[in-house]
C-alpha cells in the first residue's frame, strides 16, 4: 500500500522498530503484530553503526541487530516477507544507501514492499541524487522539519518531501520524553503544507500521541517506546501500547476520510 492511500483515513499511528532486533527472523512477525494492534504504517529502521540522530534506546537496538547478523541484504529479504497490508517505510542513514548504490537501493525498496524512505542525516540540499533515484523507482522520500527550521526554510523542505512531512517534535535525539512541548504544537501550527504532517521524537504514551493529533497532526510516530519494549521481550506490552495509542488518537480526532487528490 502506498502512503497516499494510507493517509486517506486520518489520523494515523506510525510505529518505528529497529529491523533485526532481537533477530532478523523475528522482524516480520513483529510488524504483523503492530499492524494487527492498530499501526497504520511501520517504519523499519536499518541499523547503522553510527546513528547520530538516535538516543540510547535505538543505538543499543542497532548494535544488537548488527551483532545478530543484520545487514542491507537481510533487511530487504526480511521486508519482503512481511505479510501485513500496510505501507512500510525505510528509516536509516545515508551511508548505508550510498554504499548499495542509490538506484539499486530505491529499486530494492520498491521490490520488497517499502514505499517510502526517511533518511535523518540527509537534508534536502544533499538529497538531489537520491530524490531522482526514488522518483524513478516510484517510492516516496520523506523529509524532516525541526523546531528550529526557519520560517523561510519550511516551504523549501516541505516542497521537496513526498508521502508525508516528518515534524521533529523537539531538538535533540530520539527517545522518550516526559511531556509534549508547547513548541511542538507551535511547529504543527506554523508548518503549512498540503502533505500530511506526522509528528515524532519523544512521543511514547497514548496521551502524548493524542495531544499532537489534537494540535493538528495527521499522524503520531512512536519509536523508542516500541524498541524499548521489544528489547525487554515484552511483546504483550508492545501490543497494548499500540492499541492504547491508536484508541487515544482516534478519540482525539475521529477518522476523517480525505478524498484522494
Amino acid at each position, binding site marked *: 500500500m502506498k502512503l497516499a492511500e494510507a493517509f486517506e483515513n486520518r489520523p494515523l499511528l506510525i510505529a518505528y522498530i529497529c529491523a533485526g532486533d532481537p533477530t532478523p527472523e523475528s522482524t516480520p512477525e513483529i510488524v504483523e503484530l503492530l499492524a494487527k494492534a492498530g499501526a497504520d504504517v511501520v517504519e523499519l529502521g536499518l541499523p547503522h553503526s*553510527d546513528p547520530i540522530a538516535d538516543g540510547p534506546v535505538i543505538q543499543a537496538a542497532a*548494535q544488537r541487530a548488527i551483532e545478530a547478523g543484520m545487514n542491507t541484504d537481510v533487511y530487504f529479504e526480511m521486508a519482503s516477507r512481511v505479510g501485513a497490508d500496510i505501507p512500510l517505510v525505510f528509516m536509516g542513514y545515508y*551511508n548505508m544507501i550510498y554504499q548499495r548504490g542509490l538506484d539499486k537501493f530505491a529499486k530494492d525498496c520498491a521490490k520488497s514492499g517499502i514505499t517510502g524512505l526517511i533518511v535523518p542525516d540527509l537534508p534536502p540540499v544533499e538529497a538531489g541524487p537520491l530524490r531522482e533515484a526514488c522518483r524513478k523507482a516510484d517510492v516516496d522520500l520523506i523529509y524532516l522539519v*525541526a523546531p*528550529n527550521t526557519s520560517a523561510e526554510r519550511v516551504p523549501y523542505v516541505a516542497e521537496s518531501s513526498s508521502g508525508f512531512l516528518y515534524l521533529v517534535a523537539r*531538538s535533540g535525539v530520539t527517545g522518550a520524553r516526559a511531556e509534549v512541548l508547547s513548541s511542538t504544537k507551535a511547529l504543527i501550527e506554523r508548518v503549512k503544507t498540503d502533505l500530511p504532517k506526522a509528528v515524532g521524537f519523544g512521543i511514547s504514551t497514548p496521551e502524548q500521541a493524542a495531544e499532537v493529533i489534537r494540535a493538528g497532526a495527521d499522524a503520531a510516530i512512536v519509536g523508542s517506546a516500541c524498541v524499548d519494549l521489544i528489547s525487554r521481550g515484552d511483546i504483550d506490552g508492545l501490543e497494548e501500547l499500540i492499541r492504547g495509542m491508536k484508541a487515544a488518537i482516534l478519540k482525539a480526532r475521529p477518522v476523517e476520510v480525505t478524498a484522494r487528490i
Partner: protein
Amino acid sequence: MMKITETSNTRFGRYGGQFVPETLMQPLKELAEAYGRLKEDPEFRRELSGLLTDYAGRPTPLYLARSLSRELGRKVYLKREDLVHGGAHKLNNVLGQALVAKEMGKTRLIAETGAGQHGVAAAMVGANLGLETEIYMGEVDIERQKMNVYRMELLGAKVIPVRSGSRTLKDAINEAMRDWAGSYENTHYLMGTVAGAHPYPLMVRELQSVIGTEAREQILKAEGKLPDSVAACVGGGSNAMGIFSGFLADDTKLIAVEAGGRGTSHDDKIADHGACLNLGKEGVLHGAMTKILQDPYGQILESYSVAAGLDYPGVGPELAHLAEVGRVTPAIADDETALEGFRRLSVLEGIIPALESSHAVGYALNNPRALGEVSIINLSGRGDKDLTTVMEFEGRCGR
C-alpha cells in the same frame, strides 16, 4: 600548477557537504555566518592574534634538526607545534572557535577528544574565557590517556565517558553531535579537526593555517627558497591541513602520513589501521562525504593506531579531495615505524615527539629520498602524554 576547485562553498570537489539531521542545519548556518563575519573583523583578529601570541606562545620556531639532517643526508626542519601551550597544535583552533562562540553569546563549550590533546586545549580555553566546558571521550581512550583526563578535570572541565559503539574518538564525535542537536541554543560544538559538516573543515583549516603561514615565512628566511617537501601526520588532518595550507599554491610536495597500525588488513568490524586516504572508500561520516573505513554495507569500522589521535576511521574532506587530485601524497607509517621515530628523535634531537607526530618522523627515517633536499616535518605535539603507552608497547614487544 594543479588547480584546486571548490564546486560549491560547502564542498571540496566531491567531498564535504552537510550530511546532518535537520536540527543541526540552523546551528551550522549560524556558525558559518558568524565565523565568516568575524574572520574579517579587525577587532576579532586582533584579539585572536593577541591570544595566539601571549597565551599560546606563537610564533613557534622552525628548527633545523642538525643530527636528524646528518642521519638522513638532507636538511630537515621541524615546525615546533609541540611548543604551543598545552603541548600541541590543537590550541590554535580552539582559541579561534572559542572566541567565535563567545561572540555568538554561547555560554557552554562541548568537544570530543581522542588522545585528549584537543580536550585539554578546550578545557584550557574554557577556563581562560570563563565558558562551561564538557568533553566527550570514549571509555577506551579514557583508560589509555588517564593523565589528560586528570588535566582536563584540573582545568575545570567535565569529562563525559562515552560507552557506545567502539568507545573511541568516532563515538565521542557522535555523542557530541547528539548533545549539540539538543543544546545549540547556548552551546558551541568545538570540533577539534578538519572533519565534520561545513563550516568545520574550512574553519578549522583556516584557524590552523597559522602553522603554514609561519613555516613558509620561516623557511624562506632560513633557506631563501621553498622546501621540497612538507610532511605531517594525518588522523582527521588538522595539523596537516594547517601546515599544508601555507604551501598549497607552491610546488612543494605535501606528504600526509597516516597510521598504518598493525597492518593494512581488516576484519568485519575492526581495521588494523587508520589509513583512510590510502585504504578508505568514499562515504559519509560525521556530516561529510569523505574517505572512510567501512564494510561493504556502509557500517563504519573501528580503526586502530598506537597513537590515539590518529585512531579515527575518517579523514577531513579537503584532504580526501587534495589526495584525489594528486596535490597531497598519502603515505603510511605503522606502529613500529612510529615508535622508531619516537625513540630516534628523542635521542638525536632531545625532543620527545607525540606518538602522532612520530608517524611523520618515522616515515622520514624510512623514506629519506621521498623528502627531497630540504624538508619540513610538522611536529604537531610533544610526547609526554605518551610515555605510559610507549612503556606498555615496549613491554608487550619484549624489549
